């Protein structure tokens, strides 16, 4: 039995920020992470971050990951267990954690769930062929492990992930034959699209993949134009040779652990699907259990950093009341609001206002 004060599940930007905020408030923290290294999706982000200097704008994601992981390692109040997966949860705050050699039982007073999100699949014939990969997975292969995913890629999705991963494929020397975006417009930042367009990659809006081909592995796909009803227009199909089809069609929060713990979840499309009900202190419907980052609603790493910070502050404040808690919280909330302002934040604002209206949600 390992006793701690705050268990943080997930060592990506939200979990790292939560651990640092909680430990700086005086709490003992156990940070558990499924992978062998900390950093979550940050360890693959070779591009420079947007946002403001407070969220490390202009700094490459990989550098932010390294700095945060280094800070966590240097805090004696934070214990880090990598290659550790949360398996189960029992009433009273007992977590079952699977480590390489044994299963540990962890008892904490508070828990912060920062487990992130997963790629959504897309339905079309042969969508399960080896060679059809999530875009994040391709990014991990290339940027973390230095392995090329293939020679010629078709990317599905022109949101930020599709655009950024396409650029990173070019940087790795892989050909990107086309980007297919089902909507009539690019969904991600236009500067990302402009960068790809300059390199000669066609961004085909109102298009999608309708079938994949290959006996044991992917050798090509059929694409088609979509009509106003989002269905393929007959006669517009054309084939593209490729050995990788990258799916970047959205992320959904991972809610299994939250459900196991007994948190109420609700379905909010603008946040990515099912998401744990939480209040603006990021506390779920289970007292003492918080959620932050993509697990609380799919957004950006910059937001995950601030949400993690807020959740860590809130979790620790319950154990070690901080005199400047409200001021500290207010400053972080203002940063989040600034990030979410403007036209590109419209979707997340709709999602969050729906969350605020959920009956019986959190500690309204």
């Amino acid at each position, binding site marked *: 039995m390992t006793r701690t004060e705050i268990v943080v599940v997930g060592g990506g930007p939200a979990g790292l920020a939560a651990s640092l905020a909680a430990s700086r408030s005086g709490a003992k923290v156990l940070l558990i992470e*499924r*992978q*062998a290294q900390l950093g979550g999706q940050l360890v693959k982000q*070779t591009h420079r971050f947007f946002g403001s200097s407070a969220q490390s704008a202009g700094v*490459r994601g*990989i550098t932010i990951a390294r700095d945060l992981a280094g800070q966590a390692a240097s805090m004696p109040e934070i214990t880090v267990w990598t*290659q550790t*997966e949360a398996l189960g949860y029992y009433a009273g705050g007992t977590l079952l954690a699977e480590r390489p050699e044994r299963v540990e039982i962890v008892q904490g007073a508070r828990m912060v769930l920062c487990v*992130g999100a*997963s*790629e959504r699949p897309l339905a079309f014939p042969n969508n*399960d*062929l*080896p*060679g*059809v*990969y*999530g875009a*994040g*997975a391709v990014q*991990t*292969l*290339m*940027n973390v*492990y*230095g*392995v*090329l*995913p293939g020679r010629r890629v078709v990317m599905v999705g022109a949101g930020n992930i599709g655009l950024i991963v396409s650029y990173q494929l070019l*940087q*790795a*020397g892989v050909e990107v034959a086309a980007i297919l975006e089902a909507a009539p417009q690019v969904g991600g930042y236009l500067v990302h699209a402009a960068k790809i367009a300059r390199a000669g990659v066609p961004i085909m809006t109102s298009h999608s993949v309708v079938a994949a081909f290959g006996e*044991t*592995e992917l050798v090509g796909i059929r694409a088609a134009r979509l009509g106003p009803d989002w269905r393929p227009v007959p006669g517009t199909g054309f084939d593209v040779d490729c050995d990788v089809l990258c799916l970047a069609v959205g992320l959904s929060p*991972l809610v299994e652990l939250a459900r196991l713990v007994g948190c109420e979840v609700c379905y909010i499309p603008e946040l990515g699907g099912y998401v744990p009900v939480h209040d603006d202190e990021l506390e779920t419907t289970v007292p003492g259990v918080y959620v932050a980052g993509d697990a609380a609603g799919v957004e950006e790493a910059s937001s995950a950093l601030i949400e993690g910070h807020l959740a860590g502050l809130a979790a620790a404040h319950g154990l070690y009341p901080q005199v400047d808690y409200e001021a500290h919280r207010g400053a972080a909330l203002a940063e989040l609001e600034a990030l979410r302002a403007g036209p590109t934040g419209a979707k997340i604002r709709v999602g969050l206002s729906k969350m605020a209206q959920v009956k019986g949600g959190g500690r309204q």
Partner: protein
Amino acid sequence: MRIKDHPILDFPPRREVAFTFEGRELIGYEGEPIAAALQAAGIRVLREMPGGRPRGFFCAIGNCSSCYVVVDGRPNVRSCIEPLREGMRVSRQIGHGELR
């Protein structure tokens, strides 16, 4: 195929280890996911589903179960997150695999 030069990233040299896949000797880097070592060797078909369809890498976060392989007789190993060790004997998982 492995990336040799990258405009942003440095890939420092890592310890090479020998392992086998379907009896064939391969080299990979210690600690990298088994699926990455196989991908580098051009191997993308990792399992055969009940019913016969080939499957491989997909999510890379240990979530989707598409990448299960058998390691040293142990089935249901998530090759996308399981670190490669020297001497591992890896094979495709056929169907549900066999528990020891």
